[in-house]
């Protein structure tokens, strides 16, 4: 008991002493550095109180921890001080002009309360790094760093258990690649406000109307394309998987042809065939009134050509995973070939086929080159974006439209994936619980 009394008294003394030092230092230093219009009692009180809170935390809590933790705590104070007070060249440089001294105080408070929670503290550091180190790409950096931090947190924990950092290293390397993909997109997404997007899509002017039409045209054609490919590609995939005729390998290779060919070539080939002046196009037009070039049907044709390998490949993989013996058993139980296909094969393969549909839809809606050769009008979104970029230049809406396009694709992509995946929710829970676990105080 005596010991504890003594140490309590010692701490109180120490706290009092340092408080005086801080107060005096602040008065002297700030009075000299601060611009006259900021010298107010409120500012002084805020800074001083946050400093004292930091100090209190050090003396009463952090001092019970190992020495390196104490050193880190003090070091962090120095770093914050340097960032916000000593080094920062101007108020505008940090947080878009928000007062840096106030921020300094805020972060002192945050640090002293979050220091014993490594996970939360990490989020704070991510926030700081995003806004201080890359101020011009702050939003993009913040999003990506947060993702990075979450995964690294979970992986470090896993690596500690397996005693192998190979997976973690691979993730870090892979993330560099992912950055190349995500950084431009996130940065682009952050460059327009939601209001801009709203105006561009829902406004009442002619431009917004054109955008809505293009958007609708894109969704329609991509969906029709997906249905067409679904109806014809799935049988093709099943045939390629279950048959064994001599030319199968050649046919198998041909399926990939649309991926290898440059899309404009595809567009030219289609235009060459079904253009109004071409024999087939003229015949279709003359006898059936079917016009393919500069028509949604032509767009669907081009998109079908471009996107069919994705569905066929996915469906083939899915069918390959279905043991033919299951089909045999179904037959012995009395089901005919068609009944077997719909009751056994398809239910087991639908997930893979659905994934193929997602890819096909994505490829179809994103195609520009083949579509633009076949149909300049009606506009699909990629064509409209390109036209805006070329014709309107700086005043064009291409950036806004591009963001709309990203949003559309990402939302559809995500929703469809969720539909297809039973494990998504479990994984999300796992990541969060892992991150949560590591925030417990190490003993």
């Amino acid at each position, binding site marked *: 008991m005596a010991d504890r009394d003594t140490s309590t008294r010692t701490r109180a003394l120490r706290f009092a002493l340092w408080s005086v030092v801080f107060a005096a230092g602040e008065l002297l230093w700030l009075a000299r550095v601060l611009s006259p219009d900021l010298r107010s009692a409120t500012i002084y009180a805020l800074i001083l109180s946050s400093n004292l809170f930091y100090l209190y935390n050090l003396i009463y809590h952090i001092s019970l921890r190992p020495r390196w933790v104490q050193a880190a705590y003090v070091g962090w104070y120095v770093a914050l001080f340097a960032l916000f007070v000593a080094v920062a060249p101007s108020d505008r440089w940090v947080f878009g002009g928000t007062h840096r001294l106030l921020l300094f105080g805020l972060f002192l408070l945050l640090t002293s309360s979050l220091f014993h929670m490594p996970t939360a503290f990490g989020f704070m550091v991510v926030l700081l790094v995003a806004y201080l180190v890359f101020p011009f790409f702050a939003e993009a950096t913040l999003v990506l760093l947060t993702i990075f931090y979450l995964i690294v947190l979970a992986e470090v924990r896993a690596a500690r258990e397996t005693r192998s950092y190979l997976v973690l290293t691979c993730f870090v390397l892979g993330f560099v690649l992912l950055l190349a993909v995500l950084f431009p997109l996130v940065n682009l997404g952050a460059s327009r406000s939601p209001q801009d997007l709203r105006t561009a899509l829902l406004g009442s002017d002619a431009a917004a109307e054109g955008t809505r039409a293009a958007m609708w045209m894109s969704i329609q054609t991509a969906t029709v394309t997906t249905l067409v490919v679904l109806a014809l590609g799935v049988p093709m995939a099943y045939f390629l998987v279950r048959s064994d005729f001599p030319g199968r390998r050649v046919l198998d290779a041909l399926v990939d042809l649309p991926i290898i060919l440059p899309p404009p070539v595809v567009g030219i080939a289609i235009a060459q065939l079904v253009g109004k002046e071409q024999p087939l196009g003229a015949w279709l037009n003359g006898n059936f009134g079917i016009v393919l070039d500069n028509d949604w049907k032509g767009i669907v044709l081009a998109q079908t050509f471009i996107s069919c390998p994705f569905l066929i490949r996915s469906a083939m993989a899915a069918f390959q995973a279905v043991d033919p013996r299951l089909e045999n*058993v179904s*037959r012995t*139980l009395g089901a005919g070939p068609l009944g077997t296909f719909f009751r056994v094969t398809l239910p087991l393969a639908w997930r893979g086929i659905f994934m193929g549909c997602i890819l096909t839809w994505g490829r179809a809606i994103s195609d520009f080159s083949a579509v633009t050769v076949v149909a300049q009008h009606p506009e699909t979104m990629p064509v409209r974006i390109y036209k805006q970029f070329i014709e309107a230049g700086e005043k064009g809406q291409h950036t806004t439209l591009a963001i709309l396009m990203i949003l559309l694709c990402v939302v559809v992509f995500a929703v469809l994936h969720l539909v297809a995946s039973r494990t998504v929710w479990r994984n999300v829970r796992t990541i969060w619980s892992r991150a949560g676990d590591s925030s417990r105080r190490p003993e």
Partner: protein
Amino acid sequence: MIRVVGLSKRFGAFQLRGVSFELAPGDYAVLLGPTGCGKTVLLETIVGVNRPDAGEVWVDGQDVTRWPPEQRGIGFVYQRSMLFPNLSVRANIAYGLRYHGVPRAERGRRVERVAELLAIGGLLGRDIAALSGGEMQKVALARALAIEPRVLLFDEPLAALDPPAKEALCGELAALHRQLGMTILHVTHDQDEARVLGKTIGVLRDGRLLQFGPKADVFDRPNSAFVARFVGTENVFAGQATAEGGLARIELGCGSVAANTPLTGRVGLCVRPELISIAPQALAADGTNRVEGKVEAVSDRGALVRYQVATARERFVVLQAKRDYAASALAVGQAVALGFEPDAVHVFPWEGDQNGGGVQNPIGPMGRMGPMGPASSPSARRARPHPSHLSYRSHMSHSSLERRCAPTLRARR
């Protein structure tokens, strides 16, 4: 009930060459054969998912060779149960009912009845993924039984199970057959399964049916060295037979033995290990035929003790009850005498050495070759790419299944 005539089929590496046999109604036939002998192809051809290159399949007096599998009414159970993973246990069992004119209202009752028969009522609501291997096989069996097939085909239904599950299911199959009296064709590579379950036994090799007949015939009177070896008769030798009185005298490397056979000339002979008595050389072993040799190895097989005895040229395997072993206490290296009656010697025409399945090859000068003869001496084993038919016994305990299924066996008798 089921008749197969001259069935031939080439299917990748597997081949059937003119397989013919006939099963009587209510028969339980087991086809034995090493891996790769065409067992699965045979079954798939009978069931109709393969079309034979030649030959006919008859079921219940109808030629079904050109029928699609869904019309043949043949139940089929694969080695790995092949349950439909997208359906529950109940839906799996009910799968075939709609195609067999069972009204919707009736289907549930039918499933319950089959499940009760196999004592899997508790599994009906479960997911396929939540079943053990034995349970899966039972569900697969129930699914096949639910459509009340005319014939049931089993493709190694016990091979993928662990020993206790195997034993249990083995007993249940026997009981089920007794209860329902179904015609069953079961293929396996395990002679112990055949011994416990089969009434009729066939032995397949390289797509040919070598022997097909009642169990006692095949097990006790194999018609070739391969069959003898495959059904577990380890003492298979070749010799020169001459008629002598009412018996035949066959010259072996280790002397001559008397046998009860009309055959003469070059013949093969086999003696089941359990029919040979063994005693120290000083004493007389029981039996008219006497062979002398030296104990090479003694191994404990549970109820039995297995001796390997090297004679002048051949190697004999002898199985002795453990109680007798305790009394005689023969050790490795001891000189012993083997005795057996002429009736214990089964003689069959010799067709030359058949790729390892033939004669128990003479022991070389060093006397150190394995039980498979020269092919399995260490250097030869390394040099040869492990013919599959050599592996079937090398790691298999002689009577493991027999022992495990002993209660069942007793019940059947």
